């Protein structure tokens, strides 16, 4: 039996790797990829807590499932936006996207 802490540490690692990527990437797609990492880390946590501490319930399970579903939706919209941005501005580099800035 693997202790729950291991999972949690792994999830934390992935979370902060995602955060790090979110901070440092300069490309919308890459930022989105980092976001997916973060989401995944959270999903793992939900599943782990459910499976280890409250096996008689399924809250974490379903939360993860819905999170996956919503992540898919979110990604679809995000990528649509990114494509649109690219089409209109010719770039998806964050630095160049200033049109909405005051």
């Amino acid at each position: 039996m693997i202790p729950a802490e291991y999972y949690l540490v792994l999830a934390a690692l992935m979370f902060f790797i995602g955060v790090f990527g979110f901070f440092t990437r300069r490309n919308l797609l890459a930022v989105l990829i980092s976001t997916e990492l973060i989401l995944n880390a959270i999903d793992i946590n939900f599943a782990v807590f459910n499976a280890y501490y409250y096996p008689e319930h399924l809250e974490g399970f379903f939360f993860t499932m819905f999170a996956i579903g919503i992540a898919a939706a979110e990604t679809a919209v995000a990528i649509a936006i990114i494509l649109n941005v690219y089409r209109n501005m010719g770039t998806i580099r964050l630095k160049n996207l200033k049109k909405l800035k005051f």
Partner: protein
Amino acid sequence: MILNTHAIIFMGLALLMVIAALLAVTTRNIMRATVYLLFVLFGTAGLYFILHYTFLGAVQVTVYAGGIIVLFVFAALLIGKGARDLTHTSILRYTAGFTAAATGLALTTYLIFTHQFPDVKPLTSVVPINLIGHTLMGSDKYNYVLPFEAVSVLLLACMIGALLIARKR
């Protein structure tokens, strides 16, 4: 901890996931990043299998690895050269991001190891699929038909929205 099959698989998956995640956020090529992400997602699915959440693992593989990654790949291909432009950020931002992430990680790890969790009551068997089905479609307490419907509407909205946004004018 006894070094059993589960443990070995877990270690392998963990190693794979961490390395793939690191590469995903550092590589300069967006296609590669996507592929590394795919590895991470598969790894996650593996973790779900180890946790006896096989259905969840399946969902992870189909939706994430199957759906989202495809989206990423298409996006990367559509954008093409623009997507490859992965210049690195300023050293200041880099350090700031790194410190924040590292501190956060340290803090979280510290909390994980110091926090008193409740007793472990591990799952011994795979969650039966009919239970999942009943829970998902039931309308009692701890049943999820309402969120399920909400998510379905959301997905529909997303679909239309994505179409509208990406539509050529």
